[in-house]
């Protein structure tokens, strides 16, 4: 059984108690510690900046040409904080409650409470850094409401909140680079963790330009490398987002928790052809005024304007009269899948549903609609060539975020001592489903406010320990393995490109471990993935050399790890005999097709251990809900 090291006392005192009881490193001693931060998104950049401000020697790594390009930058909507500026009844407890409930009672209460507490400080911090949050005419900060909450607590910077928050953290980090406190390595990809005596002692990287494989020792290693939605091939994630850092840590002994908890976003632009490389998200706010429908008759290929009211099925309004088009993400996504699977999909590939603004345009007028959604309509027009003012949008759900990740304790430390996971890379705060505008909050809470304290607890007793030399077998051996793996991809000389394998994997996973999962489908997926992995090892074709920039080679390693992760996701999904949040098992639904949780048997985080070649081993962290009592969600 896993010990999350949750502090004692009432939940609102956990963080304070913890901070006063854990060990600290004194200011003069911090410079004796070298901290490795992998990834420079919200969590990584904020952690690197803060740790450097405190006096630690920080080495930060990104595979981009600049630290500013991490995928946090693409977050649109906003960031939640329990500031209660609108005076509408928000509080730390309410944010905590909403997040636990939104996570379908599969998150760790204590972590979520801390997140809600820190949310307030994040807004102060980011404002001081110059993040241009939206403001009211009086000059004070503006808020808007978001799904899953009854209060307005979301702070935003137009539709580019993630960009502005990331630039704030990036700039804070670059200030430390200028001071010499952060050593920034760009175009450098982490390919393994060096572990010695159960402790992380550094990382192995590959320079993406020269191909050089090198060891970097550190007293602690922080992974802030994001989520793994790209295992589905098509997702809203950036093309380079991958699981390699996390997966390699997992293979070195870090447990991987809840890999099957993935979030599907209901309003994305459907794929237009087989070569579609990624899906683009359209803000959820569109559902406020758009009506979702499909033709009543399957295979109806008439253009939407020719389909009369009588031949349209506004299925969300029909099935969920109370919430209508505004049901939560998971419900809306699944309902769309049901219709498309019945052959009622629309568009050239019959892979979408209509999101129709005709009624809104009539009710509000074009000017108002343009004011509210103009930039989204323009983006849709740019991508599809259709104008939503004239013809309904086509939308379909897409993979968006992964709640699962490396298992961490209250200090954000994984089961490898000295190895930490921050932001989307860990599993702790969102349970089985994440609420909108909470991902930015978690990334920044972890980086700015959690890790700077909790790191001391691990480091303080190690004062005076020197860095493990890069000549140590822990490094030499791992470096050798990394080099061998890289060369192996080049030496297979098969016939299929990396992208082909990735696409095939995506199809298998989306079909069987996507919005709906069944025991049969998952078993089939596991065997399909096994044979795909076998084919990958035999028939992969990567051209070029390892000593230059070689984007296919980079991707080969990432897809290799995705193949292994995908299997674990299916194993996890198969073992979790319940439906909760983003995990919907067809065997576990109510008569009217809603998710049925099994709190008696599955109220735990499933943390899987890697066993080289054998089936993964399950470790459980029981989840106790003392402050938010689990109930069933209903949106009828």
């Amino acid at each position, binding site marked *: 059984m896993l010990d999350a090291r949750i502090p004692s006392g009432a939940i609102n005192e956990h963080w304070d108690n913890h901070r006063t009881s854990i060990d600290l490193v004194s200011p003069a001693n911090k410079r004796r510690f070298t901290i490795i931060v992998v990834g420079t998104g919200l969590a990584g950049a904020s952690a690197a900046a803060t740790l450097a401000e405190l006096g630690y020697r920080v080495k930060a790594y990104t595979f981009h040409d600049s630290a500013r390009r991490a995928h946090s930058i693409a977050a649109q909507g906003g960031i939640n904080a329990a500031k209660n500026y609108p005076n509408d009844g928000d509080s730390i407890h309410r944010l905590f409650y909403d997040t636990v409930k939104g996570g379908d009672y599969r998150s760790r209460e204590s972590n979520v409470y801390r997140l809600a507490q820190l949310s307030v400080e994040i807004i102060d911090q980011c404002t001081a850094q110059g993040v241009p949050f939206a403001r009211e005419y009086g000059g004070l900060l503006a808020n808007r409401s978001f799904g899953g909450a009854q209060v307005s607590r979301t702070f935003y910077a137009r539709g580019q909140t993630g960009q502005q928050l990331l630039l704030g953290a990036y700039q804070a980090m670059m200030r430390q*680079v200028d001071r010499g406190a952060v050593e*920034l390595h760009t175009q450098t990809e982490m390919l393994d963790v060096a572990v010695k005596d159960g402790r992380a002692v550094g990382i192995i990287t590959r320079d993406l330009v020269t191909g050089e494989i090198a060891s970097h020792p550190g007293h602690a290693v922080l992974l802030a490398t994001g989520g793994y939605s790209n295992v589905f091939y098509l997702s809203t994630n950036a093309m380079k987002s991958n699981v390699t850092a996390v997966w390699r840590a997992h293979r070195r002994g870090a447990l991987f928790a809840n890999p099957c908890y993935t979030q599907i976003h209901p309003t994305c632009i459907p794929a237009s052809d087989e070569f579609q490389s990624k899906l683009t998200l359209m803000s959820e706010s569109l559902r406020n005024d758009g009506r979702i429908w499909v033709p009543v008759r399957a295979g109806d290929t008439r253009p939407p304007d020719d389909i009369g009211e009588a031949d349209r099925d506004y299925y969300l309004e029909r099935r969920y009269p109370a919430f209508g088009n505004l049901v939560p993400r998971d419900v809306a996504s699944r309902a769309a899948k049901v219709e498309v699977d019945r052959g009622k999909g629309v568009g050239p590939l019959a892979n979408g549903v209509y999101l129709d603004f005709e009624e809104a345009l009539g009710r509000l007028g074009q000017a108002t609609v343009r004011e509210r959604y103009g930039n989204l309509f323009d983006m849709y027009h740019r991508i599809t060539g259709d104008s939503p003012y004239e013809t309904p949008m086509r939308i379909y759900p897409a993979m968006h975020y992964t709640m699962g990740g490396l298992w961490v304790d209250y200090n954000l430390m994984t089961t490898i001592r000295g190895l930490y996971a921050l932001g989307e890379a860990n599993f702790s705060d969102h349970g089985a489903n994440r609420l909108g505008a909470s991902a930015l909050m978690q990334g920044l809470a972890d980086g700015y406010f959690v890790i700077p304290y909790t790191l001391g607890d691990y480091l303080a007793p190690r004062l005076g320990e020197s860095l493990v030399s890069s000549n140590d077998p822990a490094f030499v051996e791992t470096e050798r393995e990394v080099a061998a793996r890289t060369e192996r991809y080049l030496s297979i000389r098969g016939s299929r490109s990396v992208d082909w394998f990735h696409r095939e994997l995506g199809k298998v996973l989306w079909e069987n471990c996507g919005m709906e999962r069944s025991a049969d489908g998952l078993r089939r997926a596991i065997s399909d993935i096994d044979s795909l992995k076998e084919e990958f090892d035999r028939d992969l074709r990567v051209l070029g050399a390892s000593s230059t920039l070689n984007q296919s080679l980079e991707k080969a390693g990432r897809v290799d790890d995705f193949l292994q992760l995908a299997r674990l996701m299916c194993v996890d999904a198969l073992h979790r005999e319940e439906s909760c949040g983003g995990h919907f098992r067809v065997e576990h639904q109510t008569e009217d097709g809603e998710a049925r949780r099994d709190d008696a048997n599955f109220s735990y985080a499933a943390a899987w251990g890697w066993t080289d070649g054998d089936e993964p081993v399950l470790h459980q962290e029981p989840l106790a809900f003392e402050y938010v009592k689990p109930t069933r969600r209903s949106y009828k």
Partner: protein
Amino acid sequence: MLNLRRAGPEQARRAPWIVSIYRTDTGKKYAMAITGVLLLLFVLGHMIGNLHVFEGAHGDTFRIDEYGEGLRDLGEPLFPRTLVLWAFLRIPLAIAFVIHIHAAFALTRSNRAARETKYQSPRDYLAAGYASRTMRWSGVIVLLFLAWHLADLTIGVEAVNPEFVRGSVYHNLVSSLSRWPVWILYVAAQLALAFHIWHGAWSLFQSLGVNNPRFNRFRRTFAHAFATVVVAGFLSVPVGVALDIVS
């Protein structure tokens, strides 16, 4: 990856501030803008002065000859003759010219260094007009013309204008512009000047940071109007000569 730089520029140099500003590219742009303003005022004044040619003769002297004499007499009797002309017009203008040209030359070098390998395929410009992209050529043409012009009508170098008579402005310009190659040179140079001002009189606002949404859209209009008026004025003289209005 480029090397991480650490030293702050504020510790770097201790030159007088005007020199330290001029050492930067941005400072050179200020210099170009400020000298540009002076030169614009000069060409405007020069153009207006030229129009005296159309006033013809006043008794037995041409009005423009009187005007030329008047410039030399500026400040009299307080100052010696031609002192004001030299001290407040010719020398400052010459300095402005030198700074303007030096800055342009230095910036061109810096810009070339910023793109050592040029684009290997044709560019498709959207905003950079013919005028802005040919500033250095229109500038060179104007400079060469200036040299000619000084030799032709100010100094009266024998080889350039054999019929030059000191003080007889009207006679000098008519005799000079009656030669068709000179006429063409004069007109071509004025067109180059028009292009130069077309961009320059707008650019100086940007370089000096004079911008405000209230008047931003007038800045280009101003530049284009200025270029048009000045060059139309200048061109009226050779046109007048060609049409025998001035003879």
